[in-house]
Every structure is written in C-alpha cells, then in structure tokens.
C-alpha cells in the first residue's frame, strides 16, 4: 500500500502536479518558489521545474489560512461522502456499531 510511488519524499512533481497536490493554483506554486518557501530540485526534460512533493505539502501547510482551510474541508467532505471506486459491496465492511451495542458479554 505504501510503496515507493507513495512516498512524498521521493516523488518529484511539476508545477501543475504540485498545484494539484496542494490544492492550489500553479501561480501559487510559482509564488511560493519566488518567496523561497519552495525550492525546485531540478528540471525535467522539457525544462519545467520539479519540486519534491514533501516540500510542496510543507509549503502548503505553512501558507494555509482560514479561507483555504474552509475550501479544503468542503472538498474533504465531498470525498468522504462519495463511494470509493472498486469497493465490492458484498465484501465491504459494515460500519462499526455503537459502543453500547458492541459487546455481547
């Protein structure tokens, strides 16, 4: 589940990918890079900046304010309410019951 592809310290992202990961615009990523919050680790074959995903997530954290947090929470609510793709209904886990009903003996 947590393979190398999932490791944000080992994942390099273009500006557009970094923007998607941080849920901001590419202009925000460029802005962070200009302010020194984010440092590109190199360039890809097309000359585009590459950022480490972990750095992007830390930059997002340090610049997050209430309006963005509010938008993130709305997006998170939408994700949590959507059914996960690939879930087999016959094997999907039933939600845990209340504590009051949880024990038989």
């Amino acid at each position, binding site marked *: 589940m947590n393979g190398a592809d999932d490791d944000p310290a080992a994942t390099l992202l273009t500006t557009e990918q970094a923007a998607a990961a941080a849920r901001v615009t590419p202009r925000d990523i460029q802005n962070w890079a200009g302010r020194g919050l984010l440092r590109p680790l190199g360039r890809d074959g097309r000359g585009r900046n590459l950022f480490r995903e972990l750095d992007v*997530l830390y930059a997002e954290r340090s610049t*997050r304010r209430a309006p963005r947090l509010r938008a993130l929470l709305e997006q998170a609510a939408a994700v*949590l309410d959507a059914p996960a793709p690939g879930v087999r209904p016959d094997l999907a886990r039933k939600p845990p019951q209340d*504590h009051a009903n949880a024990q038989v003996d």
Partner: protein
Amino acid sequence: MTDPHHPHDARRCVLCRQRPAWAPRWVCALCYRALRADLADLAAGYEWLGECMSALPPSWREHAIHAAPLAPPPPMALHLAQTRSDISDNVWYWVQMVLDAKRPASRPPAEPSVPAALAWLTARLGWITRQPAVGELAGDIARLRERAERADPRPAPRIDLPLPCVRCNTLGLSLHGDRLAATLVACRVCAARYSVADCRAILAAARTELPPDGCAPAPGPAPIGHVGSAA
C-alpha cells in the same frame, strides 16, 4: 481528574498509551473501535485472498499460445495460501485462549471458519478488552490485517483526501479505494492511520474551530482539533 470511586479511570490505554482507558477496559474508546474495525477488515481480507488464491494468470488460458511447452503453474497462489494459513493459525490461537480463560465458558464458534472465528471474537470484544492481554491480541490482529492487505494482488487505487492530518497538519492523507482498505485513511507524510469515522470527526471539529465565513483570516495556520486516532 481521577474519580476515587472509579480506580480504572487512572489507566492508560494499552494500545495508544495516550488516552485514558475506557473503564473497566484496558483500551480507550477509539482503540476499541479500531480493534473492532481490524477484526472486520481481517475477515474481509481473508475471504478475498481465498478468492484470489485459485485464479490462474491470463497467460494460462487454454487458447493462449506458448513459444515452448512449459509446465503449468501450480493451480493456486502459494504465498496467498500461506498468508491465509498464518491468519487462520493466529485467529484460532486467540479463540482457544479466550475459550480457556473466559468464565463462564463460552461456546466455541458455530463454524470452523476464520470469518466465523473473527465474528466470535468480535462478539466477545467487551470481555477481551477487560483483559490485560488485549494489547497482544490487538497487535496480532493489526499485523495480520496489514499482511492480508499487502498480499492483496490488486493494486490499490489512491484517493487523496484534502483534510489536514491531525498529527503533521499536511495534506498527506489518502483514502485507499481498495476493497480491503475501503475505510482506511493513511497519511503519506507521517504514516498516521485513521478510519473514515475518525476523519468525519476531524472534519467536524475543524469546521467548528474555523472562524465564521467573512471574518478576517486567522494570523497563522488554522489549528485542527485533535480528535482522530493517530496510531
């Protein structure tokens, strides 16, 4: 804070070692729920591995053309069979432990199957969590669940969850839209794990801590309530 009439209140949860135990148990309410969820996940994982175990690769369909005659592969995935066998051994070990220790004695599981044994353990979770050895059982169950998850031959699609992690406050959370881990949310930055129920609680707490829309923005990163179980 400790009520002298309830000495159990002073206990720490033996699993997270942070929150007070849910008296008279040895675990807190969140870890109780996590253990219950692990038991359910393990049963689903065991059944799924059984379905995957006998599937032959597509190259061994009858009409497939082979460059050279090859010996057919074994008709089952041996590593999945080994994983299932280990799960079975461990689960039945714990069933036997409960049968030996519990008074009044319980009847054994109705069926000699691992899902039935796990359901039997789940039904006795109230008694189990009142025993000091619950930490060992919970550790075994979590380890087996993770092993079943790792053995799952299908790649797990990742769904990013734009909710700040309680532990590291980054957007590293992702929900694995896999059958086994359909309700598992993990942080890729700090490896904290949550159930979807935890995430909903975190979301609700974060919403209540936000200033009303239209107010001046907070001077620093908005704090997130520490509600979830960062295991």
